[in-house]
Structures are given as structure tokens and as C-alpha cells.
């Protein structure tokens, strides 16, 4: 009954060539993701990128127009939401208003015809897990946002799903609570060992919690990688731009030298950079984008710049942020100033930065990213 394609057989949750169209509008286009058992996997992207639609297809609330989803080797194409081995934590939490906390959590267990004692034991266990013991009798309308969030989590986990789906579950919480819930959620995932698929538009949240992240943009999955790889080696302009901040430079490929690529970049002149892992797009004369993150740019003593890895500019705007300084440095031959984030330690070693002061910017060639134009 279960079809499986050999290429991605190892995936516990497999999304294969999944496309979803709503009346001519493509919400998700040819998504291919394979998620391992026990992985904390995030779908990250701006609102309207299709990440929630993809999650709803995994849950069974929507069905793919093309392609298929497999859970633990089983094709889910003809399986309705109530028969899937997944549970979901909704963005609005969807706590049943007519039931108390105990009955909310026990909702999925009732169907299993367990003894009353077994249901009570599991609910108590779940309440302890979310650090809300003894809250069972509380009415749904007497709960705070944080409590609702935890109860939604307990209500899903108490069914011991193969996959837990979370639709921006921390979005409605205030910043402090959100940060502590991030840690707690990650700890919980490690201890229960259930595969989590977490949808968020908050890149910091995704980076700090996930084993791997799929970045989505306008319905397409652009890159699937670990948080570190996404930040250090984005594969396109959209991913680089969405995660962290970054300076982009229009550039032309001049040639290759050893393992390096030589570029001519507007405002920087001739630049040397490492050859990216996937470099099919690099050929002499090709238009590409050179990119570097603000914190990877160093402020050097005058004249210490290495050729191909430095530029001279004039400090424009300057913001003091305590642990770091944010500078805007104007380069000749480029309209937009370059953003530089100078850390405290670096600042102590060099002189004060003043607007109008001339500085030399330097960087490691590994920090200069080359992206398709």
C-alpha cells in the first residue's frame, strides 16, 4: 500500500514534489524535504511564504495538488487528519472553551477507550511535563496566554504522536516568556524524542531551536540546512537577506585562482573570495552577488588592508549599542553605505570612531560570500 521512492527512503517524514494551488494561486511549489526521526525541524519564512500551508498539508487539513507526503514510510495522500499519526499545536492554541484543562488534555485519549485511571494518570503526567501540576480543574477561560500555550502542547503530546506540528506557537507570547518557552520547548523535544516540525517567521527563534531549517520564500523551499550552514553559507540572496543582516554588492566574475574566485565588485574593487560549494553559476564574466555580514568586517589601522580583502571608506552614521557599535561606511563607487558591526573588543583596540573619519575595512576571504546574481 505504501509507495516509497528509494532516493529519500531514510526520511521519517518525507515531503516529495508537493505543490499546492488555491484557485490558480500557487501557495507551495514543488517542495522536497526529508525530515529524520527525532529531528527538530523548522519551516522559516516571511508571512505568506507557504510555510503554514505546508504544515497544514502535513497535518491533513489540506491536500497537495501534486506530490505526496509520507510519514514513517506510509503514504498520507488518502489519510484524513483524524487518522494521521501527527498532532498539532495551533497558533491560536484552539483550547476547547467548554472543557476544563483536564478534559482538554484528555480529548484525544477518550477515543482510545482507556480506563479512567489510565486517562487520569496520563493527563497528570502531561500536566507535570508542562510544569502546571494540579491545574486540571481550571476552566479554559481562566488561563493566561502562556498556560494556554502549554496546555495546547500537552494536549497534543499526550497522544504520543509520531510527529508534532507547531504553527508559530510562541507568536502570541511576550518576549520574555517566548524566550523561556524556546528553551523549554527544545528541552522537551529532546526528552520526549518526538519529531517536531516548527513553523515560524522569527529567524532567531528558528536558529536557536532547530536541528535543521527549511527557508521558504514565495511558495518555494530555497534552502534546507543547519542553522550554522544557513547563516554562514546561504545559497541565495533571499536566504542571506532573510537570516541576519548582510551587505550585498553587484559583482562580475573575473576568473578563478586556486580555490578562490576573483570578482570585480561595485565599491570594493577587485575582491577575492572562497569558491562556494555549489558553483555551477560561476564562469568568467557572469553577474553574481558578493555578500558580507556586518560583523565579519574588521576595522583596520590605515594601510593594513590586504589586496582583494579590504576597502577604504568614510564613516557616516554611527550608533553606539553598548556591546557593539553600528557604523555606516560610505565607499566610493557605491550609493548605499556598508553596514559594519564592530564588537567591543575590537573597539577598545582601535581609536574612537567619528563621523567623517576615514577607515580601512578588512575581512577574511572566507567571509565574502558569492551568490547567484
Amino acid at each position, binding site marked *: 500500500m505504501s509507495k516509497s521512492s528509494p532516493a529519500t527512503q531514510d526520511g521519517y517524514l518525507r515531503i516529495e514534489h508537493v505543490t499546492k494551488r488555491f484557485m490558480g494561486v500557487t501557495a507551495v511549489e514543488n517542495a522536497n524535504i526529508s525530515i529524520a526521526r527525532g529531528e527538530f525541524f523548522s519551516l522559516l519564512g516571511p508571512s505568506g511564504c507557504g510555510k503554514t500551508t505546508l504544515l497544514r498539508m502535513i*497535518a491533513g487539513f489540506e491536500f497537495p495538488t501534486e506530490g505526496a507526503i509520507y510519514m514513517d514510510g506510509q503514504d498520507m495522500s488518502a489519510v484524513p487528519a483524524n487518522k494521521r499519526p501527527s498532532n498539532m499545536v495551533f497558533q491560536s492554541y*484552539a483550547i476547547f472553551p467548554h472543557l476544563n484543562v483536564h478534559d482538554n488534555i484528555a*480529548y484525544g485519549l477518550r477515543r482510545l477507550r482507556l480506563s479512567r485511571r489510565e486517562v487520569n494518570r496520563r493527563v497528570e503526567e502531561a500536566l507535570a511535563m508542562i510544569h502546571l501540576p494540579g491545574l486540571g480543574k481550571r476552566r479554559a477561560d481562566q488561563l493566561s496566554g502562556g498556560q494556554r500555550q502549554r496546555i495546547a502542547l500537552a494536549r497534543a503530546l499526550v497522544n504520543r504522536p509520531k510527529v508534532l506540528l507547531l504553527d508559530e506557537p510562541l507568536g502570541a507570547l511576550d518576549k520574555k516568556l517566548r524566550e523561556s518557552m524556546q528553551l523549554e520547548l527544545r528541552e522537551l523535544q529532546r526528552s520526549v524524542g518526538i519529531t517536531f516540525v516548527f513553523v515560524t517567521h522569527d529567524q532567531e527563534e528558528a536558529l536557536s531551536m532547530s536541528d535543521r531549517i527549511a527557508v521558504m520564500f514565495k511558495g518555494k523551499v530555497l534552502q534546507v540546512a543547519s542553522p550554522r550552514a544557513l547563516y554562514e553559507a546561504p545559497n541565495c540572496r533571499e536566504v542571506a537577506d532573510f537570516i541576519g543582516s548582510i551587505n550585498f554588492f553587484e559583482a562580475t566574475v573575473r576568473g578563478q585562482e586556486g580555490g578562490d574566485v576573483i570578482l570585480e565588485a561595485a565599491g570594493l574593487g577587485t575582491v577575492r573570495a572562497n569558491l562556494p560549494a555549489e558553483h555551477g553559476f560561476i564562469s568568467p564574466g557572469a553577474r553574481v552577488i558578493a555578500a558580507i555580514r556586518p560583523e565579519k568586517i574588521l576595522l583596520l589601522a590605515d594601510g593594513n588592508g590586504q589586496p582583494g580583502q579590504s576597502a577604504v571608506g568614510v564613516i557616516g552614521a554611527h550608533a553606539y549599542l553598548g556591546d557593539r557599535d553600528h557604523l555606516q561606511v560610505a565607499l566610493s563607487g557605491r550609493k548605499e553605505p556598508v553596514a559594519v558591526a564592530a564588537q567591543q573588543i575590537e573597539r577598545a583596540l582601535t581609536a574612537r570612531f567619528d563621523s567623517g573619519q576615514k577607515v580601512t575595512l578588512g575581512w577574511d576571504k572566507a567571509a565574502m560570500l558569492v551568490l547567484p546574481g
Partner: protein
Amino acid sequence: MATSAISQSASQSAGTGARGGLRAWFLRSENARGYALMGPTLVIMFIALAAPLILLLLYSFWTQEGYTVNTTLTFDRYFDIFVNDTSENRLFWTLFQRSVSISGVVTLVTVLLAYPIAYYVAFHVKKYKFLWLILLTIPFWTSYLLRVFAWKIILGYQGVINSGLQSLGIIDAPLEFLLYNPTSIVITLAHAWAAFAILPIYVSLEKIDRTLLEAAADLGDGPWRRFWRITFPLSMPGVISAAVLIFVPTTGDYVTPELVGGTQGKMLANLIQIQFGKSNDWPLGAALALSGLAFVGLIVVFTVAAFRAAVSRVR
């Protein structure tokens, strides 16, 4: 009553030298604004509801003597209805029972028929919900009396159904059980009150957060379980208000049993009407009316409480 309370406290605070005068006081006081808003309605309610009720209560403690009313206070009317072995006693209980069972059936039938319609409009009509609701209320654009007459024509001995079936050769003689019995009252009232069931049920269904149904599906429930565990309990307020809205006035309905009920379909209100008309015994009529009111009230309170308790056991 309410207006005098306002002017009284207004003059008090004016007397203590409130800053900004009456206008500022009015803006500061939540209560004053509330009463001002309700004022006109309260006055009408008092004149048209409280005053007649008090008058009715007074009458029920008086005695009819020929063409005059003896205003000595007495419980005799209530004794006649509840204690003494009188024709009033037997009539009251027979007709009260019949009224309650007829309108109980009417309520049940109407709510059961209205629920699917309300459900359909709330959950499956996407675009023209408002149009649907307007269309559902079209029967109410005709007067109540005309609708009852219409049913009389449809159900009558030579009515639409009988002549239709006869001309098709399905029956030889007209069916007599269609008109002038409790069934025809149920049919007529169920149709007459349909919109009063559909609208409140629709509103409560419409308010249900659709995510809750997705959550129930996600937790393993198929469509039926989802309905009984989420949709139905959450539509309770609508079902209860529909039931009360229909049960209370139909128990006291007088036009429909008079026109389509026949002798077997006489209800409590017909007996009361006779006291205020032919029999000319207003005190007895008043006592009958208030007794009916009290018992219907009790039935409603207990039924609603029992229904609520039953539904809250659904988990």
C-alpha cells in the same frame, strides 16, 4: 422610575458643586449613561408589561359576582384551580398538559428541522450568507394570521393536499386526520416559528472558531464525533434560546388552536380567552393566566438546567 433616579442624583452632585456641571457628571458616570440609554425602553416596559401584570395579579385575588367584581382579596380562584374538585381544576390540568405537550413537540420539531438549515448556512454557504438568511425569513413577511389560514387551506377537508391526492387517484376520500387536531397545530406552529429557531442557532454556530474543529480532527475525531463533542455543545446557547423562544409563546398560543385545532386541539389560552370573553369571569381568567405563566416558567427553568447538565457531560 429610572428617570427620577437620574435627576435625583444629578441634583445631588450639582449641589455638592461638581466640576464642569451636569455634562461632566454625565460623562463621568457609567450608570447615568446606561440608564439614559435604557430609559425609553424601561418606561415602555413598565407601562406595557409590569403594570398589566400587576393588574392581572390583583384581578386574580378578586371575585366575579354577576356583572360586578368584588375586590375583597381572596385565594378562592387558586383554590378552585388547584385544590377544590371543580371543573376549573380538571380543565386547567387537561389543557395545561395538552398545551405543554403540543408546544413541547412543536419546539422539538422546529429545533430539529431548523438545526440542519442553520448548520448549512453557517458552515457550507460561503458567499451569500446574508441572502440566505433573508430568504429564510420570507415566510415572516406575511402576517401570522394569514399563514395560519394558509395552512388551513393546505390541510383542509377539500384542501390542497386532499384534492391533490384525490386527483392523482392515490386516495378515494379526503384524509380527515390532517386538520382540526393537535398534529395540525404542530405543523402550523413549527412552520410559523421556524425563523425564531434558525436565527439563534445560526448565530451560535457562526461564532464557533473553525480551528476548534480542526483541533478535534487532529486529535482523532471523525466528522460525527467532532459534531457531538465540539459543534453541538458550543451551539447550546443558540439551541436553548431557540427552544425557549418557541416553547414559551406557543404554550400560550391562542390563534392557531382556535383556527386549526378543532375540539381536540383546544389549549390553555383558549380557556383563558373564554374567561375574559363569553364567561365574563376576569378573576378566574387572571388566575388561570398567572398559573400557566408560573408553571411554564418552572418547566423552562428545570428543562434548561437539565439540558445544560446533560450536554456538559459530553467530553
